[in-house]
């Protein structure tokens, strides 16, 4: 497993390929890319312009990396995984920019899909990152969403 918190962009295709490179036991790689949405409707852009012009991601150096490692370790305990890669960007990003990448390699697709979604759900609620949006009306810190707590909570119910 490998976890990175970085300002730089990443190459999803190269990361996916790296998980199965040089081995013949990987049958499935499930992956996820999260991107900055302009989020037209939901916010202040009633004039139809893109409401979110940019976004700055803050983290807690040290703890953030440890929290991501711990989430991956939990996933490895729950499913049969062969390799895991997590990348989360920090700093200022624009609409359309990639924010987060999670990829999970397994022999079987069920384990790969479940672990990939589990890692994203836990990352959303347990890894110390915070987003501040720049909008025409000024900066605003993004509120945590109950739907994310709900998504993470599903895994506790022994789904």
């Amino acid at each position, binding site marked *: 497993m490998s976890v990175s918190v970085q300002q730089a962009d990443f190459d999803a295709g190269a990361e996916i390929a790296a998980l199965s490179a040089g081995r013949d036991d990987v049958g499935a790689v499930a992956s996820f890319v999260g991107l900055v949405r302009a989020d037209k409707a939901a916010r202040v852009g009633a004039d139809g312009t893109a409401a979110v012009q940019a976004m700055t991601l803050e983290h807690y150096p040290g703890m953030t990396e440890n929290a991501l490692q711990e989430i991956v370790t939990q996933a490895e305990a729950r499913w049969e995984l062969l390799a895991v890669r997590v990348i989360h960007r920090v700093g200022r990003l624009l609409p359309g920019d990639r924010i987060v990448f999670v990829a999970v390699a397994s022999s079987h697709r069920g384990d790969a899909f479940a672990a990939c979604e589990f890692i994203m759900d836990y990352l959303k609620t347990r890894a110390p990152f*915070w987003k501040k949006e720049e909008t025409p009306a000024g900066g605003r810190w993004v509120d945590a969403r109950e739907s994310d707590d709900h998504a993470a909570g599903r895994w506790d119910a022994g789904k």
Partner: protein
Amino acid sequence: MTVKILFFAGLREALGTGTEALALPDGVATAGGLRDLLAARGDPWSALATTRNLRVAVNQQMVGLDAAVKSGDEVAFFPPVTGG
């Protein structure tokens, strides 16, 4: 020995600082006790009492406000996380 205190995101902005070193006074033994001590300084520190769903980490582990805090610890306060 002091406690290293960290603040993040909107809380950091509200307080105008991201870090503070504080000698832990007698009688403050939990993260919640430390939060109350700081919030009692008045504005802008009362943000520590009014931040909705305030989170706390002691030595980089998320814990409850009843978690023990002692000299030498790193204690961080922050709003709910919004990464991903």
